[in-house]
């Protein structure tokens, strides 16, 4: 059989490189000579027409050369560093045929007001072809307060749905069969409580825990670093996390027990390298914590999942996902001795970058989201949320959510990029960036190891400070026109965003929710609630006991989230932010 280079020879008669300078074709005898000729030609071009920047960089600040070619990827050994998809180190993806079998899960993050409104939104999304649910909870729910708590004032239903007890959760999933749909829940400090509620809703629908599939975010470390919805101090929080690993391993085996998240780290302003580095360093901390409790990383490692951002720089983002997969596989294999390939694989969800959305000319956000979503697909994501164009202004309307979902469907069904695996592999620039991001992240991880691990690093404010510096530098870049944001610092128009149709959650939602909560409390078995809450207290005091069964008992008799977290607050205390500026 002829190879491609044979055809080339046949067509041209000889194997030589062509260099075109001012329309004159010259021949070079070998690669080095051709490269030297190119450099000379390039110099002339640049002298005549200066380039737009002295130093080009990726959005994440990595220097970018004018050209990448074969000597930039000479260091790569295909089988060791890239290999075939579905094989270690999974650079090319976690499945052999990726999207030729099944597309990624189209999972739109949604939730607002009360369970009734959010249930309607989920059913709207399911009718339109969304393939997985993703629940956004309001801030009181995320921080373990019932709606009637003084700290919850003004916040009910604003950034997600208000859930106080199992009663709300039953409404949230009304007429949504939990054995047919997978559900992701963005819940961290009180993750165990919401997971328990989900298991109970399943019970009521006749769906067994082992049939449930989905994810809880359960990633407390990035809450301290970047997202802010922590409750308890690190030690108790890590226990809650690893209790969930263990409980799910035994009872809810198809559940992703954690979604180790770089998304919010990037949103807080980090670079792509920092996003990978801090996320995987968090991952290392969880694996270590679970190992200390006697769990086997070959087992719980299968259920670890990840969550990354999709920012604007298409090439850098594609490289980022590939680098993250490779580095995590190496960490699991080499650092933790994991031999089970499924526990070496980095599976991830992606959300397009909220921080890139502009309030100015919001329609432009549709294009940004398209490019970002495309990057995540080219990078091999397992599931994807596409942001809606109006999210720099408020929660999205149904119309804008539909466009966001359609964006994914167009990429999946029309763009063609899903028909072959990892299409950017072998690209000189993408492979080079993949190497660079992996190396940069590994350097950070080494530094964090030297500090004594991620918990110590957080305590010292290290990742927080690194992220803030990057955020500030990015803002400076925009203000000095080093970075252009269309419609913000170039191509501005005077158009106002006022008068657009926006989704509103008014204060009557809070009043309604409080009324429901009080009615529920007066009709439940309050003796049982008190008893089970005391069981939680006792279990909290005994580190070797798993808290999950006690939480499940309490949830089942309609103990509220605030009551359960209240007991845990009394036992564990509360985290006090280490302010870094």
């Amino acid at each position, binding site marked *: 059989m002829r190879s491609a280079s044979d055809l080339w020879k046949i067509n041209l008669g000889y194997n030589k490189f062509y260099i075109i300078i001012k329309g004159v074709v010259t021949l070079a005898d070998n690669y080095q000579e051709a490269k030297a000729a190119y450099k000379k030609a390039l110099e002339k071009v640049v002298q005549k027409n200066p380039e737009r920047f002295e130093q080009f960089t990726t959005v994440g600040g990595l220097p970018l050369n004018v050209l990448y070619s074969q000597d930039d990827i000479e260091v790569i050994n295909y089988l060791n560093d890239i290999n075939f998809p579905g094989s270690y180190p999974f650079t090319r993806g976690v499945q052999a045929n990726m999207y030729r079998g099944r597309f990624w899960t189209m999972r739109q993050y949604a939730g607002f007001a009360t369970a009734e409104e959010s249930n309607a939104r989920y059913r709207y999304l399911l009718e339109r072809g969304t393939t997985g649910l993703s629940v956004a909870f309001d*801030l*009181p729910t*995320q*921080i373990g*307060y019932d709606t009637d708590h003084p*700290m*919850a*004032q*003004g*916040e009910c239903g*604003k*950034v997600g749905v208000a859930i106080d007890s199992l009663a709300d959760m039953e409404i949230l999933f009304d007429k949504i069969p939990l054995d047919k749909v997978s559900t992701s829940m963005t819940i961290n400090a009180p993750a165990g409580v919401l997971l328990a509620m989900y298991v109970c809703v399943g019970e009521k629908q006749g769906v067994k825990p082992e049939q449930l599939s989905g994810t809880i975010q359960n990633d407390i470390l990035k*809450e301290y670093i970047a*997202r*802010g*919805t922590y409750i308890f101090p690190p030690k108790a929080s890590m226990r809650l996390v690893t209790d969930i690993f263990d409980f799910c391993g035994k009872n809810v085996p198809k559940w992703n027990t954690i979604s180790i998240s770089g998304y919010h780290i990037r*949103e*807080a*302003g980090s670079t792509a390298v920092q996003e990978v580095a801090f996320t995987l360093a968090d991952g290392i901390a969880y694996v270590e914590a679970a190992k200390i409790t006697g769990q086997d990383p070959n087992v719980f490692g299968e259920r670890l999942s990840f969550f990354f951002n999709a920012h604007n720089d298409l090439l850098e983002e594609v490289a980022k996902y590939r680098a993250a997969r490779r580095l995590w596989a190496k960490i699991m294999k080499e650092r933790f001795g994991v031999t089970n390939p499924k526990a070496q694989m980095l599976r991830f969800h992606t959300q397009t970058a909220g*921080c890139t*959305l*502009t*309030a*100015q000319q919001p329609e432009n956000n549709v294009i940004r989201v398209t490019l970002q979503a495309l990057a995540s697909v080219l990078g091999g994501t397992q599931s994807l949320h596409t942001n809606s164009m109006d999210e*720099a*202004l*408020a*929660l999205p309307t149904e119309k804008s959510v539909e466009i966001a979902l359609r964006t994914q469907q167009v990429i999946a069904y029309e763009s063609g990029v899903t028909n072959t695996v990892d299409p950017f592999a072998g690209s000189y620039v993408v492979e080079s960036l993949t190497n660079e991001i992996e190396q940069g992240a590994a350097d950070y991880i080494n530094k964090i190891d030297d500090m004594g691990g991620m918990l110590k690093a957080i305590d010292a404010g290290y990742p927080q400070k690194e992220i*803030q510096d990057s*955020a*500030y530098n990015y*803002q400076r870049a*925009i*203000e000095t026109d080093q970075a252009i*944001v269309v419609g*913000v*610092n170039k191509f501005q128009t005077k158009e*106002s*965003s*006022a*008068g*657009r149709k*926006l989704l509103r*959650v008014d*204060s009557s939602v809070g009043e309604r929710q409080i009324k429901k909560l009080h009615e529920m409390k007066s009709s439940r078995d309050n003796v049982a609630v008190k008893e089970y809450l005391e069981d939680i207290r006792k279990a909290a005091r005994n580190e070797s006991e798993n808290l999950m069964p006690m939480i499940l008992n309490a949830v089942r008799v309609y103990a509220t989230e605030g009551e359960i977290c209240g007991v845990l607050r009394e036992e564990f205390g509360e985290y006090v*932010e280490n*302010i870094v*500026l």
Partner: protein
Amino acid sequence: MPDKIRVVIAKPGLDGHDRGAKVIARALRDAGMEVIYTGLRQTPEQIVATAIQEDADAVGISILSGAHHFYFEKVIGLLKEKGAEDIIVFGGGVIPEEDVPDLINMGAGAVFGPGTPTGTTIEWLKEAVETNK
């Protein structure tokens, strides 16, 4: 040398998005102001107490959770109650443009939406503090 402008940058309520608050705090500091950043989860009472204690010229409220009406009203109301209505209140975050007039009517000096250059906020604040004297 005129006295340095003193600003409290505050994160009210449960909202954890502090990127904007920290960037603006740093920009104001780099512009020569004395900046006190409260950190997350501040009640309106805590914010007002800090502003008075720190003898602040202004309080900047950063909020992205949609609860801006509630918190602006509370902070401005409490400042009045404590006889500290001379402290300028301004803010920013994910706040729809059409909500801004309401916040201004409550007594906010200015509200800066997403994409505002830090220079705009700095210039406005300098002028507002100057006229307030």
